[in-house]
C-alpha cells in the first residue's frame, strides 16, 4: 500500500487515516494553506501550520483546528507527518508524509522566490512529489520582484500626479499583503477593501509587519485621501464601491499578466506580472531538488507539464483534483 493514495474525496493516507486538502467532507484533513480551493469547510478535524491557522479560523469559522510549527514531526497512526515552508503565502506548507521509509511530499501551491513575507520555500527530499502546474509552460518566467515593485510605484506616482486614484486588483490572502510590502508609502496613502483589510488585521496580530493602511468602508470620503492607491479584490474593480473614488486607473497584479491577451482582457489600464506560484524554471528546479523519481501533476497545464517531465526521465503522471478554481486562476 502506498503512503498516499488518490480517492474521489482527495489525497488520502491509509496508514494515518487522513486526507490532504480534501474537496469533500472527511473526518480528518491536513491543510497546506488557507486558499478556498485547498481549505474547504465541513471537515471533522483540521491540522495546519500555526502561521496559517488565524486566517483559516477567520475564513472557515468555528472549526476543530490543531496546529504544528514548520519542521515539527507528528505521528498520526502509522504515518510520520511534518509541514515545511512552501513560500506561497504566509503559513503555507508542503506536507511531508513518511510511511515505512517511503516519503511523499504534497506541495499544495508553492513558489521558489523569497517574497519577503512568507517563510521561504524549502526543498524536501522525497520519493514521491505532488506538484501544482498553474504556470507549467515555458512561456512563464517571472521578472524580478524589485523590478515589478518599481513598475507599480511608478504607475502609482503617475496616477497621483495626474489626480487619479490607482486601483490595484489582487487576491485578498497573500498577494495583497505581499504587494503592501512592495509599495512605497511615501507616494501616498494606501486604502484597502474590507476583504483585504480583514486579512491584514489578522496578520498584524500575528506579528507580520505590514505598512499602515486605511479601511475604505462606506464612511470614507475619497477626497480626504488624495494620491491614494486602493487595494481591492478583482471582483471589486469597476463596482459601484470602486466608482465612488472618482477618476481612476486600474491595474491588476497576477502571473497571468505575463500574457498580453489576458492582460488586455482583464487588466484595465495596467497589468503587473507577480505571482505566488512557481514559474517554469521554478517548477523544474523544485522538482529536481526533491530528488523524487515519481511526480504527480495537479492543477494547471497538467497534460503538457507531465509529458515534458516524462520526456526528461521522470515517472510523471497527471492527477485529477479539484484544486485551482476560477477565482484562484484570476488571482494567481
Amino acid at each position, binding site marked *: 500500500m502506498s503512503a498516499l493514495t488518490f480517492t474521489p474525496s482527495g489525497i488520502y493516507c491509509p496508514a494515518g487515516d487522513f486526507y490532504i486538502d480534501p474537496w469533500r467532507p472527511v473526518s480528518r484533513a491536513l491543510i497546506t494553506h488557507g486558499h478556498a480551493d485547498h481549505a474547504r469547510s465541513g471537515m471533522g478535524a483540521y491540522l495546519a501550520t500555526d502561521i496559517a491557522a488565524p486566517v483559516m479560523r477567520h475564513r472557515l469559522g468555528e472549526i476543530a483546528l490543531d496546529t504544528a510549527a514548520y519542521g515539527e514531526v507528528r505521528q498520526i497512526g502509522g504515518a510520520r507527518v511534518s509541514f515545511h515552508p512552501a513560500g506561497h503565502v504566509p503559513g503555507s506548507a508542503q506536507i511531508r508524509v513518511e510511511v515505512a521509509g517511503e516519503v511523499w511530499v504534497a506541495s499544495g501551491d508553492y513558489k521558489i522566490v523569497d517574497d519577503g513575507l512568507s517563510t521561504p520555500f524549502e526543498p524536501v527530499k522525497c520519493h514521491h512529489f505532488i506538484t501544482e502546474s498553474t504556470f507549467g*509552460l515555458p512561456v512563464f518566467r517571472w521578472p524580478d520582484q524589485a523590478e515589478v515593485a518599481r513598475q507599480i510605484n511608478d504607475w502609482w506616482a503617475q496616477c497621483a500626479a495626474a489626480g487619479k486614484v490607482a486601483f490595484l486588483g489582487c487576491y485578498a490572502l497573500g498577494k495583497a499583503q505581499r504587494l503592501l510590502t512592495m509599495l512605497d508609502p511615501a507616494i501616498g496613502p494606501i486604502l484597502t477593501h474590507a476583504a483585504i483589510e480583514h486579512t491584514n488585521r489578522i496578520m498584524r496580530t500575528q506579528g507580520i509587519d505590514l505598512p499602515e493602511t486605511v479601511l475604505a468602508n462606506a464612511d470614507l470620503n475619497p477626497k480626504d485621501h488624495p494620491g491614494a492607491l486602493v487595494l481591492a479584490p478583482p471582483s471589486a474593480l469597476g463596482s459601484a464601491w470602486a466608482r465612488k473614488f472618482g477618476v481612476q486607473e486600474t491595474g491588476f497584479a497576477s502571473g497571468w499578466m505575463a*500574457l498580453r491577451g489576458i492582460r488586455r482582457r482583464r487588466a484595465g489600464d495596467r497589468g503587473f506580472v507577480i505571482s505566488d506560484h512557481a514559474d517554469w524554471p521554478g517548477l523544474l528546479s523544485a522538482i529536481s531538488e526533491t530528488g523524487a523519481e515519481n511526480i504527480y501533476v495537479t492543477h494547471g497545464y497538467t497534460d*503538457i507539464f507531465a509529458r515534458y517531465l516524462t*520526456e526528461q526521465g521522470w515517472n510523471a503522471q497527471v492527477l485529477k483534483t479539484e484544486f485551482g478554481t476560477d477565482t484562484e486562476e484570476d488571482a494567481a
Partner: protein
Amino acid sequence: MKRFAGLFNAIDQSTKTTVKVAALAEYFHEATEQDRIWTIAIFSGRRPKRAVTTTRLREWAAEVAGIPLWLFEDAYPIVGDLAETIALVLPPAETVSDHGLSYWIDMLRALPQVEEDARKQAVLDAWNSLDPTQRFLFNKLITGGFRIGVSQKLMTRALARATGRDEPEMAHRLMGDWDPAQVTWQALIEAEDPAANASRPYPFYLAYALDAAPDDLGPPVAWQAEWKWDGIRGQLIVRAGEHYVWSRGEELMTDRFPELARARDFIPDGTVLDGELLAWGDMAPQNFNALQKRIGRKTVPRKLLQEAPVILYAYDLLEWQGEDLRHNPLADRRAILEDLCMGLPPDAPVKLSPTIDFDSWVALADIRTAAREAQAEGLMLKRKISPYLTGRKKGDWWKWKLDPLTIDAVMIYAQSGHGRRANLFTDFTFAVWNGNDLVPFTKAYSGLTDAEFRQITAWVKKNTLERFGPVRSVTPHHVFEIAFEGIQASPRHKSGVALRFPRMARWRQDKPVQEANSLADLNEMLEIYG
C-alpha cells in the same frame, strides 16, 4: 527600437483614444524620418517581405529555449500569438542594442539575399540583444499582422495633429501603392501635389447599420434607396491612361479582375467610380459564392472568367474630368454617373446600380423583404444632398440589412481564441441533429459578451471529452442560436451546406439539447434561400 517599443507600450496599455493619439503624435515629432515612415507603413498594414518562414522561427526559438518543438507548439495556442510565444520562451537577452526600428527593418529586408545559416544567426543575434517587448515587436515585423489597437483612422488623426494638416487629406495621402523603402517623408506627407500618384484612391465612405425602421429619417423624398449588394466594395480609377481597382480593405486588386481593363476603352481619364465588384450573370448579379471563386486568385483561368465575369456595379462618382466631386450633393454626382453609364455598351465591365423608387417607408419595407431574391443583403439609404464623406459617419448613409437567417445548433467542439481572447474558449463548432447523430455544419466565434465567454470557458474546462491539440470535444449540452446571411450547397462540408457570416446570436440556455434544429431543417433553408 526602444522608442518604438515605448510607443507600443503606451498604446497597448491604454484603451483611450486620446491617450493613443497623443502617444503617436509625440512619436511622430521625435522619431527619425525613416522610423516615422516605417511606423506609418506598419500601422497601415504594410510590412517588409517575410524573410523567414514561421516554421523556421518556431524551430529556432525552441532550440534557443532548450525545449522540444512540441512543447513550443502546445504553448503557442495558449499564448495565442506566435511573436509573443517566441519572445516569452527565449532566455533573457545577454546584450543590449540601441538600434532604431528602421535598422531592424533594413536588416530583415536584406535577409532574403543571404544563406539560411546567416539568416538564422542574424535572427538569433537580434533575439539576444532585445528586451522582451522589443523582441515581440521584432518578431511581429517578421510575422506581420500588427493588430495592436491602432486603426488607420487613429494613426491618420495623430499624423494630422503632428503635421498640422487636415485629417481627410492625410487619409488620402496614406492610401495607395507607396513603398516605405522608397518614399520620403516629404513626398508622402508634405509634397504639395497630392494627385502625383495617379493610382491613389479616395478613402471610402461607410454606412452605419440602421437597426430600426427608417421612419425617423424624415420625408422619403429626401432619400435615395438602392439594393445593398453582397460583393466587394471597390473603387475603379481611370487616370492618365491607366486603370486601378481598389478594395475597401485598401488592397490593389487590378490584376485580379482583368476584365475591368476594358473600362479604359469607355471611361475617360480623370474618373473615379465607387461601386460593388460582383460576378455578373446574364441580366443580374450572381450570388457571392460565384465571386468567392475569384477572390484570392491572382491569375484567373479562362473558364472561370467566362463563368464568373466580374463587373463594377457603380453607385457613386467621386472624380469626374479630374475634379474631386466629393463635396457635391449625391443627387448631382448621381446625375453625371447616370449619363456616363447610359453611354456604355451592354458588354462594358461597368454598369449602373439602379435606384429603387418608393413613396413611403412602409412601401420600402415591403420591397426590402425581396432583397434575397435580388441577390442583395438589404437596402442602402443615402440622403440625396449628402457629400461623400470619409470613413464611417452617422447621419447621411445607412445600410438597412435583412434580418439574418437563424438556426438552433449544438456546440460540440471548442477552441481557445487568439490575442485578446487567448485562454478563453471562443471558437466553437456547431452541429444539428441527423437522427441520433450530431452533424457539424458551421463554426462561429463572435456574438457573445466577454462575461458569456468566461462562463462558457469554465464550462468547457469541466466538460471536455477529448483533446485534439488545441481543440476540445465537449459534452453536447449547450444550444446556441446561429445567425447567418446566406446558405449554399457545399460538397466539401460534411453537412453539405456552407453558411455566410455565421455568428452566435444568442446562447439558448433555456433550450434542451434535443430541441436543436435538424439537418432536414438546414436542407429546407437551402431549398428556399440557396
